[in-house]
């Protein structure tokens, strides 16, 4: 952070600390508390929806879990003499409420993992609706429509906190939530989250377990909602299902989108504006929703990416102001002594319905060699790559690395085994910078999980610095150093292909599978690609290259395998393959070959 920003932040904190003393009466203090509480929930939703791209319309229910848990627990514990004396039941309730909401979040993650887009929205809506209805119907436990009154007032020992004191408790939690969000999204774990929003396959291909990341982020997001709900319960002293309706969930999503999804301050600004606006409109009650609706529409016209989205967008530099640097020949430390493995494909068969995509295919790829796999469209090349990376499972046959059979059930399994890949249709992470793309690639070598990101200290920082340094070398290796901080989405097509290769290299692969890396490239870009492939071989990486571009194949390959209709029809050196009559027939047809 720059000095000016730290100064502004310090001023804001001082103003917030002084606020209750300055503000007249309790009304404004009360409003501030509500803004902080909603802000905490919105921050949680922002991590989930804004950064990780998982839209939720069920956060009010998670808030309800926190609120009802602490209300019921602290009320039940209140008569116990120990708690009566210390007032600890309230703080225990808040902690347990937060944990309970987190558990519900983990529960919600299970069905939510399998669905996306509007289908995910529906799962969260249904979840919220079920919780809401249970609160209404299970009256012996939740008090039904009437809710729970007499929620214990917050106190420390025998000192009951008045609203201007409770303000500081909530403010502290709010600042902690904000700091937690900052730490999380600027960590390597946060990078994985943001990458997942754009391509789950892309992050899985470097060994990230998408399942675990999603459960973690749902759980954390729910904990924020639960904390907000618990703080809310002790503020209001009375809660009912009405506080946690579907509309409240909509409100939180609106707050995140309004302020700017995936920005650090967006959720706070959204929560503040959307909470305070209706209060200011108290005087013309009948037209409240109209003003609200028109206000939202006008804001959307002017700032389609939310308030903070617009501010950040203005500061973003474009590609042209970046100086071009010299290309480097030095092999990066990270892969300089790569231990390329021997990859064996043993009798693999795979069919899709009636179509036999691969029939008894065996290929042996020598360690440290460039092995090309060619064949006409539909020959089964990509299917084979997908089997080698665990994206598909073979019907029969096996894959072995250095003699040991691999069990590949997912992309991340393959990545963990040391098999990296690029994709025929590029799978990059949208606006993330080139450097960030490669940083995500280090996932398998990173010790930082979600907890590490939240609490980690110097070890965390030194790891990030180490990986960043290695990432820069990799980027330089593929010749993209002048675009290091540029959003990958702004790069030329050929450069984006190279970003994918740099990301795959961050895995420190024993085997690298390139699926048609030259597709759509111009001659100059293909030459640069060939150069990268040759230098990778010099580092010792085993490469399997699927390509159509014969010039490239002949110039870089040590060996070529030809597939046609799912079967190996030829294998040999580039010179031999070019003369092989079966290959010529497969590509050009019989009559031409005869002529």
């Amino acid at each position, binding site marked *: 952070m720059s000095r000016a920003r730290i100064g502004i932040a310090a001023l804001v904190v001082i103003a917030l600390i002084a606020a209750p003393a300055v503000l007249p009466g309790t009304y404004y203090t009360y409003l501030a508390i509500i803004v902080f509480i909603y802000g905490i929930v919105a921050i949680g939703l922002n991590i989930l929806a804004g950064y990780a791209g998982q839209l939720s319309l069920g956060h009010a229910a998670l808030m309800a879990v926190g609120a009802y848990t602490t209300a019921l627990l602290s009320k039940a514990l209140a008569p116990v003499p120990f708690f009566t004396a210390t007032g600890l039941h309230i703080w225990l309730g808040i902690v347990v409420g937060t944990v309970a909401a987190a558990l519900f979040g983990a529960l919600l993650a*299970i069905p939510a993992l399998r669905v996306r887009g509007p289908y995910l929205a529906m799962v969260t809506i249904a979840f919220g609706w079920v919780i809401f*209805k249970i609160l*209404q*119907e299970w009256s012996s436990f939740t008090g039904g429509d009437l809710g729970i009154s007499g929620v214990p007032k917050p106190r420390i020992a025998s000192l009951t906190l008045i609203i201007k004191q409770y303000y500081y408790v909530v403010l502290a939690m709010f600042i902690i939530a904000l700091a937690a969000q900052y730490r999380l999204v600027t960590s390597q774990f946060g990078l994985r989250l943001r990458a997942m929003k754009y391509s789950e396959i892309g992050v899985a291909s470097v060994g990230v377990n998408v399942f675990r990341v999603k459960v973690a982020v749902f759980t954390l997001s729910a904990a924020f909602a639960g904390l907000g709900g618990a703080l809310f319960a002790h503020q209001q002293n009375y809660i009912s299902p009405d506080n946690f309706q579907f509309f409240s969930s909509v409100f939180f999503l609106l707050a995140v989108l309004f302020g700017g*999804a995936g920005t650090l301050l967006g959720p706070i600004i959204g929560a503040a504006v959307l909470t305070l606006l209706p209060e200011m409109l108290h005087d013309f009650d009948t037209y409240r929703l*109209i003003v609200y609706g028109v206000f*939202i529409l006008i804001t959307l016209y002017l700032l389609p990416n939310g308030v903070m989205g617009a501010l950040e967008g203005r500061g973003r530099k474009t590609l042209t102001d970046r100086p071009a640097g010299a290309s480097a020949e030095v092999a990066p430390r990270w892969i300089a002594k790569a231990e390329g493995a021997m990859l064996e494909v043993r009798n693999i068969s795979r069919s899709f319905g009636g179509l036999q995509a691969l029939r008894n295919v065996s290929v042996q790829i020598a360690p440290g060699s460039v092995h090309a796999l060619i064949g006409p469209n539909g020959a089964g090349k990509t299917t084979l790559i997908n089997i080698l990376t665990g994206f598909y499972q073979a019907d029969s046959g096996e894959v072995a690395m250095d003699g040991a059979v691999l069990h590949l059930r997912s992309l991340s399994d393959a990545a963990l085994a040391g098999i990296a890949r690029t994709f025929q249709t590029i*799978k990059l992470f949208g606006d993330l910078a080139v450097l960030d793309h490669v940083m995500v690639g280090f996932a398998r070598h990173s010790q930082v999980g979600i907890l590490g990101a939240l609490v980690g200290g110097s070890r965390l920082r030194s790891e990030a610095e180490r990986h960043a340094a290695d990432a820069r070398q990799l980027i330089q290796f593929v010749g993209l150093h002048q675009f290091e901080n540029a959003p990958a989405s702004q790069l030329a097509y050929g450069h984006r292909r190279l970003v994918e290769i740099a990301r795959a290299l961050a895995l420190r692969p024993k085997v690298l599978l390139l699926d048609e890396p030259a597709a759509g490239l111009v001659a100059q870009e293909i030459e640069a690609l060939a150069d990268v492939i040759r230098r990778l071989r010099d580092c010792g990486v085993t490469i399997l290259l699927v390509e159509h571009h014969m010039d490239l194949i002949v110039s870089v390959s040590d060996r070529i395998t030809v597939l046609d209709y799912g079967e190996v029809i030829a294998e040999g050196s580039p010179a031999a393959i070019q003369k092989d009559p079966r290959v010529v027939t497969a590509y050009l047809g019989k009559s031409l070959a005869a002529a």
Partner: protein
Amino acid sequence: MYFFLQVALSGIATGAIYGLIAVGYSLTFLTTRILNFALGMWVMLGGMLTLSLVVRLGINPAISLVVVLAAMTLLGLVAERVSVFPFLRAGSDVWVMSTLAVGFLLIDFAEIIWGRTPAKVPGFLSNQPVRLGPIAMLPQQVAILVVAAIVFVALDLFFRRTLLGKAFRAVAHSGEVSTLMGINVRRIQAGSFAGACALAGLAGFMVVPLTLAEPQMGTVLGLKAFAIAIIAGLAAPRGILLCGLGYGALEGLISGYFYTGIRDILGFSLMIVVLYFKPEGLFGHPQEERA
């Protein structure tokens, strides 16, 4: 057995209403990848207009229906121009907010024009139950089923047999290619939004004699219809009618055998389970990211 049939049938009419609304979500999603999140409010608007026309002005229900449909289409076009079109290119989730903002406007306008007190709209048909042996249904319920059947058959024919319908499907498949083929994609997008609003208006017209007319009447209907559209699969209009009827029957059964309070808890829990096993909906096809 008779009780079983009776309670199942009692829910089916409501299910047909869900289906009518739900197909509106599908329409806009297919052509523009957006969902009108305020569709329930449009149902309410249809209901309130019906209240004014039929009850307050005493206009013949058939003529009223035509007026309602025309008004809804027109307002739908305006709403599309104001709240969807400007954001189509943004490629973000802004439409979630903008369609909801229009929904807020509709609710507030309804409260100002019609007030918050629920009003009763008498049935357009007689209140004498139609008897099929031991099973009884209200004529209004039968009418809903008939109308829903007609609408879905007409939609099906429209999409499969007419050139305009095929243009809709082409846009659903790929807007860019459709433009190259000379289809006015812009018109189709606006038309699908307005069409969804008209369907919502029809649903409001049909349902209002069974419920009460009030500004909040559409919220839960819209939500459940959204659930139906998702459960069936947004790209599967035929499945949407089936799921609507099925869910309506299920609601009737739960209310009949247990009690109404537990209806939504069971119903929505079931939906989560269904989506767990069929993430693209019961009639949807997998659209996974491919390598």
